[in-house]
C-alpha cells in the first residue's frame, strides 16, 4: 500500500491550522527558526553571482533525469551491483518495510541504528520494525528528540524546531534516564553524544536514506551535519539504504551543482559539515554488506502527471518552508504529513492519491515566495493551481462548484454582470453600515469574523462612466 506517514488520516488543513495558531509557543519557535535560516540563506546566496545559473542547471538536470528515469535507474543498479552492492526494488511502503525486515532478520539482529530519512517516515518503517521486535534507534539529534518525546516532526530539515531547550531537556532527562542534565544547548548535545556513541560502536546494522544516487558510478551520497550519518554508514557490518527513485543523478560531476545548491538552501551554509559518498562495498573500510531499496510508493503517480512532475525535482532542502508565510504561522504539523509547507502541499496529495489531503493544495495564498527560493526551480504556485484543478475536476465540492458557475454566468455578459451588481447592492443593505459590512452571511462570514468588508458603493465604476457622458480630452 502506498503510504505517506499518517497523512491519509490527517485532519483538514483549515482545522489543523486553527489549533496550530492557538499554540503561541509553537508560532514563536517557528518564526524564530525560519527567520534565522532565511537570513543565513540570504547571505550565502547573495555572495554567489552564478546562483541563478546553478538553479537552472539543477532544474534541468532533474528534469532530464525524469525524462530518462528508467535508463538512469538501471544504470545505477548495474554500477552499484558491480561494486558489490545489492539493489532491491519496492513498489510501495509495505514492500519496502518487508525487504528491510527480511535483511535484518537474515542476520539474526534485533537492533538498527538509523540516519534521518524522510522515506522511512513515509513508509512508517519504525512501526513495522517494532511490530516484529526489532528496535530502531534514531540518531539525528532532532529525530532523537522526536523519538524520545513520542512526537511528530514539524519541519523537513529541523524537525524539532517546535521544541525549545527546556522542553528538550525534559525529554532527555526522561528518555535517557538521566539524573541530572545542564541547561545549556552544549549540555544537551553532550548528553546525546554519550547516549548514542555506545550504540554507534556496537550495533551491527545501520539504516539510512540517500540524497543522491550517482548513476554512472553506482555511488550513493548522504549530506549531513552531526556526524551520526558517518557513524551509521561506516561502522556497522550491514548497511541498508532506502531511497526514492527520483534521487538518481546522471554523473559524479553533477554533484558539483547539487553540493552547492543544497547546503546554501537548507541551512544557509557554504557547505554542510559532512558529506559521505560510498560505492557498493570497499573491503577493509566500512560495511561488508550493502543493500539499497529503490522506493516507488507513489512517485510514478507524480511522474504520470506531466504538469506536476516537477515536484520530483525536490532535493529536500526545505527552503520553501522557511520562505512560506503560511508555514510561518502554522508550523508543519498542520499539514498532517511528514512533508509539510509548500512542497508538502503538492507532494503529499500526489503521492497518496488526490482523494486524500484535498485541503492541502488550498493551504496557500499563491504568493510565490517558495518558487523564488527553490534551488531546483519547482514552480510550486503553478502546480498548486494545477492540483486544485484536478480536485475540482475529479471530485469537485458541489456547493462551491454551483457558486463558481453562478459567478461565471454573471461574468459572461455585461448586462448580467450589472444585474448581479444591482442584486448584490440590494442584498447587502441589511448588513451594511457606514460603508462597511461587519457581519456577512454565508461563506463571507469567515471574512467578517476578523475583518470588515467594504460594502458595494451605490454607483459602480461602469455606472459612473455611463453617467459621465462624453469624455473630456
Amino acid at each position, binding site marked *: 500500500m502506498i503510504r505517506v506517514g499518517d497523512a491519509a488520516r490527517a485532519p483538514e488543513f483549515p482545522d489543523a491550522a486553527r489549533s496550530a495558531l492557538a499554540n503561541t509557543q509553537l508560532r514563536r519557535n517557528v518564526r524564530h527558526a525560519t527567520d534565522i535560516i532565511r537570513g543565513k540563506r540570504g547571505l550565502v546566496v547573495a555572495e554567489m553571482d552564478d546562483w541563478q545559473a546553478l538553479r537552472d542547471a539543477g532544474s534541468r538536470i532533474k528534469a532530464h533525469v525524469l525524462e530518462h528515469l528508467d535508463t538512469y535507474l538501471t544504470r545505477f543498479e548495474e554500477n552499484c551491483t558491480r561494486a558489490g552492492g545489492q539493489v532491491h526494488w519496492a513498489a510501495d511502503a509495505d514492500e519496502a518495510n518487508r525487504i528491510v525486515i527480511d535483511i535484518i532478520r537474515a542476520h539474526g539482529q534485533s537492533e538498527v541504528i538509523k540516519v534521518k530519512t524522510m522515506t522511512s517516515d513515509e513508509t512508517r518503517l519504525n512501526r513495522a520494525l517494532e511490530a516484529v521486535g526489532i528496535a530502531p534507534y534514531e540518531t539525528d539529534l532532532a529525530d532523537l528528540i522526536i523519538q524520545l518525546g513520542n512526537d511528530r516532526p514539524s519541519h523537513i530539515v529541523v524537525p524539532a524546531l517546535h521544541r525549545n531547550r527546556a522542553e528538550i531537556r525534559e525529554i532527555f532527562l526522561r528518555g535517557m534516564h538521566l539524573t541530572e542534565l545542564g541547561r545549556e544547548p552544549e549540555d544537551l548535545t553532550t548528553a546525546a553524544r554519550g547516549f548514542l556513541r555506545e550504540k554507534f560502536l556496537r550495533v551491527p546494522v545501520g539504516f539510512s536514506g540517500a540524497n543522491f544516487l550517482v548513476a554512472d558510478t553506482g555511488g550513493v551520497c548522504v549530506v549531513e551535519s552531526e556526524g551520526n550519518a558517518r557513524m551509521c554508514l561506516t561502522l556497522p557490518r550491514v548497511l541498508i539504504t532506502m531511497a526514492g527513485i527520483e534521487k538518481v543523478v546522471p554523473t559524479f560531476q553533477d554533484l558539483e551543482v547539487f553540493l552547492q545548491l543544497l547546503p546554501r538552501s537548507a541551512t544557509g551554509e557554504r557547505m554542510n559539515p559532512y558529506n559521505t559518498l560510498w560505492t557498493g562495498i570497499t573491503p577493509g573500510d566500512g560495511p561488508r554488506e550493502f543493500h539499497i531499496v529503490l522506493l516507488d510508493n507513489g512517485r510514478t503517480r507524480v511522474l504520470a502527471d506531466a504538469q506536476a512532475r516537477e515536484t520530483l525535482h525536490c532535493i529536500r532542502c526545505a527552503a520553501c518552508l522557511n520562505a512560506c508565510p503560511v508555514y510561518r504561522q502554522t508550523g508543519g504539523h498542520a499539514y498532517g504529513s511528514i512533508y509539510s509547507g509548500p512542497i508538502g502541499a503538492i507532494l503529499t496529495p500526489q503521492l497518496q492519491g488526490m482523494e486524500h489531503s484535498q485541503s492541502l493544495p488550498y493551504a496557500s495564498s499563491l504568493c510565490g515566495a517558495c518558487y523564488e527560493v527553490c534551488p531546483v526551480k519547482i514552480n510550486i504556485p503553478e502546480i498548486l493551481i494545477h492540483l486544485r484543478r484536478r480536485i*475540482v475536476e475529479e471530485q469537485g465540492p458541489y456547493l462551491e462548484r454551483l457558486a463558481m458557475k453562478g459567478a461565471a454566468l454573471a461574468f459572461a455578459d455585461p448586462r448580467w454582470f450589472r444585474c448581479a451588481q444591482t442584486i448584490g447592492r440590494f442584498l447587502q443593505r441589511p448588513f451594511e453600515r457606514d*460603508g462597511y459590512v461587519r457581519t456577512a452571511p454565508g461563506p463571507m462570514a469567515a471574512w467578517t469574523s476578523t475583518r470588515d468588508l467594504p460594502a458595494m*458603493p451605490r454607483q459602480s465604476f461602469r455606472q459612473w462612466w455611463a453617467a459621465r457622458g462624453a469624455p473630456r480630452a
Partner: protein
Amino acid sequence: MLIDLFITCYNDTLFPETGKAVVTVLERLGHQVEFREAQTCCGQMHFNTGYAAEALPLMRRTIDVFRGSGPICVPSASCVSMMRDHYPSLAAEAEDPALQAGVEAFLARVYEFSELLVDKLQVTDVGATFPHKVTLHTSCHSLRSLHLADQPVRLLQAVRGLEFVALPHHDECCGFGGTFAVKNAEVSTAMGLEKVRSIQDTGASVCAAGDNSCLMQIGGLLHRQGAAVRCLHLAEILAAREAGANLPVLRQAQGRPERSRGTPEGGSHPIASSAER
C-alpha cells in the same frame, strides 16, 4: 494617446474610486481614456481556485472585447499576472491558434497602472499633491510575477508634500490570496495582522498599494481595529490635486454613503484628524 481601461471586476464593483482616479490621472496627462463596456472579468478567481473550464470563456471574452484597442491600463497587478502567466497556456490548451495569436497581441498591449505611467508614458511626476505620510505595500503578484521594480515608489516620491516611508517586510504576503482569505480565514488573518503591525510601525497615515485586493485585506483589518491608517490605491494618491486638509479625492475615496467614518468629530476629515492626534 487613446488608452483603454480594464477596470477589473472587483474594482468596478467595490472600488470605483480607483477607476475614477485612473481616468483623472490619464486625462490630466493629456490622454483620452476609452472604457469598453462589454468587459467583465479576467478569470483569475476561477482559474486560481481550480475552475479552468470556467475561466476559459472569460479569457476569450476579454481578448475579444479588447481587439484592436490601444494600450490597456489595468490597475491591478494580480489581474495582469493572470493574463501574462496563464493566458498563453490556457490558449495553448484550448488548441486554438487564433486564440493564441489573440492572446499574444493582447498581452503586448497590457500594462499594469504604474508600468503604464513610468515605462510606457515615461512619466513619474503626474502633478499630484498629497501632503501625508505614506507607506507602500508591494503585492506578491507585482513583485514576483510582474517583477515591478521601483516604479510605484518613484511615482509616490514625485508627489508634492508626500512623505514616503518604506515598509519593513514589504515583500511579505498580506494573506489575501483570493479564496484563500475565506477558505483559510484564520491563517489569512494571522498573516494580515503581521502586515498591519509592520504598517502601523511606520507611523504612516496612509498605506498605498497597486492592488485593491491586498488593500481590502489590510484595510479590512485596520478598519476592524479602528486604526488611524487609511488604505488607498496608488492611483487615488496620484489623482489628488489640491493642497490642504479637505482634499476632494479623500472625501471621494471614502467613497461610501454620506456619513463620515465613525470619527467622534462627525464631519471632520479622518486623515486630518488622525494627523492631529
